[in-house]
């Protein structure tokens, strides 16, 4: 998708970003954008299998609370809690979806929604999880004496998570599993007729997506240093769907990143207050659904024509050969 020549340039920009952007608040937004991209890519992976999940927020919450509890109550190091949080989230997904997936995509969707809602309710009602006031005083991650306290250090941490995520997803998409997913995405019946075990591949996609949602949840817990159950609401799951839609549903890695960038930065540039943000996003979604169903990246498909036109013009003028 991205031109190979551009990769080193993008890499350098990403590494130097905190020094190009000297504003801590902007870095905070960029960190959020990275986290949301990871969630969005999880949604995209499940979407590739012709399934809609509305529960990313719930699995994000599971990972966040698992890591927070392990570190605060059990004294575990963050670096161990991180993968364990991912595994916890993946196991929770497995538990719910190994039954729900058998009953069809609509039930899958319903169960993802219901499970995410129940996760939020339980996290709020039960005192062990901190109740509605949430968990406080979650320590930041540390290696030895170096504490990931500044926005810059946390940015590098989340950047590593994002890059690992992208590399793993890219590798998966190129592998046999990815080809099976593409087959399922094109036509479920044909894939089944080809002998692909649709249920197993869909379950794998869901579990992997939820694993990474859990991992990024653990990061979130230690970045914010506090967790409130109401953050992980149903609306957040809808926003995750919006990231994928705005970017472009057929672009499984770049789409959610673009979508997350749009939804994090556009309200900032337009100075839209917290109250009006859902209305703004909703109107944006309706406009995109009606006028640009392929998402922002679908404009890219028209670019080749643009470059052909430009080169034609160049030949006419005599600039090009």
């Amino acid at each position, binding site marked *: 998708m991205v031109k190979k020549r551009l990769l080193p340039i993008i890499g350098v920009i990403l590494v130097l970003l905190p020094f190009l952007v000297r504003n801590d608040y902007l870095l905070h937004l960029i960190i959020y954008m990275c986290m949301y991209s990871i969630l969005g890519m999880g949604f995209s992976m499940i979407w590739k299998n012709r399934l809609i999940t509305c529960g990313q927020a719930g699995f994000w919450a599971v990972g966040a609370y698992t890591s927070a509890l392990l570190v605060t109550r059990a004294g575990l190091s963050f670096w161990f809690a991180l993968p364990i949080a991912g595994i916890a989230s993946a196991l929770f997904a497995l538990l719910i979806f190994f039954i729900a997936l058998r009953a069809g995509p609509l039930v899958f969707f319903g169960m993802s929604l219901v499970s995410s809602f129940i996760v939020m309710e339980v996290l709020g009602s039960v005192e062990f999880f901190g109740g509605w006031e949430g968990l406080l005083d979650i320590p930041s991650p540390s290696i030895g004496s170096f504490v990931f306290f500044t926005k810059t250090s946390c940015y590098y941490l989340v950047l590593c998570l994002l890059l690992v995520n992208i590399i793993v997803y890219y590798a998966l998409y190129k592998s046999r599993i990815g080809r099976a997913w593409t087959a399922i995405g094109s036509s479920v019946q044909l894939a089944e007729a080809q002998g692909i075990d649709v249920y197993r591949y869909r379950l794998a996609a869901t579990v992997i997506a939820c694993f990474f949602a859990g991992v990024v949840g653990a990061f979130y817990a230690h970045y914010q240093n506090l967790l409130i159950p109401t953050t992980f609401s149903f609306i957040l799951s809808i926003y995750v769907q919006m990231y994928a839609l705005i970017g472009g549903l057929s672009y499984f890695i770049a789409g959610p990143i673009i979508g997350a960038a749009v939804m994090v930065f556009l309200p900032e540039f337009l100075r839209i207050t917290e109250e009006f943000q859902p*209305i703004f996003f909703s109107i944006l979604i309706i406009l995109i659904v009606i006028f640009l169903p392929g998402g922002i990246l679908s404009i890219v498909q028209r670019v080749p024509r643009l470059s052909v036109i430009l080169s034609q013009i160049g030949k006419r003028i005599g600039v090009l050969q």
Partner: protein
Amino acid sequence: MDVGLFFQCLVNGLAIGGIYAVVASGFTLVLGTMKIFNFAQGEFYMLGAFVAYAVCEVLHLNFVIALIAALLAMALLGVVLQRFIIRYTYGGFFHTVLATIAFGMIIRQTTVITFGKTDRFVYPLVKGRIEIGDIMMANDKLLLIFLGIALIVLLHYFLKLKLGKAMRAVTEDQETAGLQGINARQIFLITMALGCGLAGISGAVIAPVLAATADMGHAIFIKILLVIIIGGMGSMPGALVAAFLIGLIESFGYQFFGGYNELILLCCLLPLLYFRPGGLLGRPLAIPQ
């Protein structure tokens, strides 16, 4: 468990189950006829409650007028949704669903901005309770049961009318219905109006019992999804049975388990799904993927 408590739970369960049944019927109608998930169903329900609040407490009119106002206003809003938004979504199933979600969010946020986040109370229509020996049943809950069943019966007989038969025809097979001379687009508008109107009037009906809050849309939508999953997508009788079942489990569950009753609901649901993936009474609907 003593008899009084049992009857209280029973009445509560049937009352809330009735409301779930009416809202779920509207949702199922739209799902069956137009093959779309109206994610804004919960928000129509919430707005219906706020309309009832506005009519009763702000304009100080009769509660019956509030019911009719909620029904008509929500029906109109549903028609707006269908005519101006859903009609133009060509991207596929997911795009339509996200459009309804977006519309629902606009409704919710506008309501929150207009009315604020405080709960709005509507003066109850009936008060007090009936006492038969040890058994005490709250009057307003009994009224809910009555209204819920009344709406379901009305819907049932409506579906027997010519218009209702046309709707059922479109649900069965859109093309053949067209061959019979049924204008599918018109039916879609009417179905949407009916579905959203039912949600609105349910909200208005329940406003005296539970206050009009900003989050009631989300809360009931989760329950509606549970109803649809258990009852079978697109199956009207399944939705009714499942709605009352869920209402009763919720009511009795709250007595025994307190805040955990939702978790218990989920635990009851999962084994059911394992043994009957199509829901209790439904044939799973073939939604275009």
